[in-house]
């Protein structure tokens, strides 16, 4: 699909989300709900008195939150689109220069950084940057510039992993 058309479609999905529910898209919030429900399942008292997690332990279960349902939709939507385009295949995608083991290490390290950063920045590229820019919020633009700026700055040091 032509990227511009995909961009317009994504914009319309974002608009539909605003019109229907008054809030934009998000992703890292769902991962946090997974973590919160995991921690409260394994060590309930620890979750109760942990400064950060208890904020998300209000009455109903953390898994019954807006973002978790949205991410469930994302996974199924992605699967359908992959199936339709014939891209369903279990594999590790990596540049020929690195081994898949190294790629997996990098991916999990990147995930760790992104998870940590998304909590600190109150949202990831879709939650804070994309939604923030659509509503013209300053936080959106600052987060977007910080994410893309740092990525561009560090690109040189990690070029072997990609090119």
């Amino acid at each position, binding site marked *: 699909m032509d990227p511009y058309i*995909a961009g317009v479609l994504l914009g319309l999905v974002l608009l539909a989300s605003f*019109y229907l529910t008054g809030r934009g898209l998000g992703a890292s919030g769902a991962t946090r709900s997974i973590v919160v429900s995991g921690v409260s399942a394994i060590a309930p008292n620890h979750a109760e008195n942990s400064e950060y997690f208890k904020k998300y332990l209000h009455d109903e279960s953390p898994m019954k939150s807006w973002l978790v349902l949205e991410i469930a939709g994302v996974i199924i939507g992605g699967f359908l689109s992959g199936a339709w385009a014939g891209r369903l295949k279990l594999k590790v995608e990596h540049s020929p220069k690195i081994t898949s083991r190294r790629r997996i290490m990098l991916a999990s390290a990147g995930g760790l950084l992104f998870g940590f950063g998304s*909590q600190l920045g109150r949202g990831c590229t879709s939650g804070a940057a994309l939604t923030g820019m659509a509503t013209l919020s300053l936080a959106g633009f600052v987060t977007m510039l910080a994410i893309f700026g740092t990525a561009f700055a560090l690109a040189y040091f990690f070029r072997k992993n990609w090119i």
Partner: protein
Amino acid sequence: MGPIVPLFNVSNEINLLFAFIIGLGFGFVLEQAGFSSSRKLAGMFYGYDITVLKVFFTAAITGMLGLIFLNFMGLIDLDIIYINEYYITSSIIGGIIMGAGFIIGGFCPGTSFTAAAIGKIDAMWFVAGSIAGIFLFGEIYPLLESIYMSNYEGAVKISNILGIRDGYFALLLIIVASIMFWIGELAEKKFKREDISKEI
């Protein structure tokens, strides 16, 4: 008259149904745009494939123009729409850490779920990593609380800060985006990577 859920007191279950349907669209479009491949995502930083830039900015601009026109026609009430709160230090530091995570991991949370859905094992590891990252943040939160909460500016809009109308700022952003698209396409020709683009 939007937004529907808050204005018409729609029940939570229907709100969650909306979330699922919106998620379906979100996931489908992300995958169709090719965001399920980390090498395509990283292409933007190395110039060989700037799909991310095109999709991301076109989506943001479409959403922005949509909100402006709907508001003008009285079909949506912008006082109720969620606008991200702006905490200066945590937005910047958080963004920097996320930027590093982006260039190292190759995904962002939304795209990692999409990629994991079509079988990318590295994306699954990315999700596992982000779970660990969030857990880590939760554990050392008391140390970071001061940074997390410092200089709160409220849900401030960039057009208010610059003192111009929303539509006016949208026009400026569109012009800047068009220039970036043009430069991006030049870069794509210059840093052409035949070997990668046929793989993705």
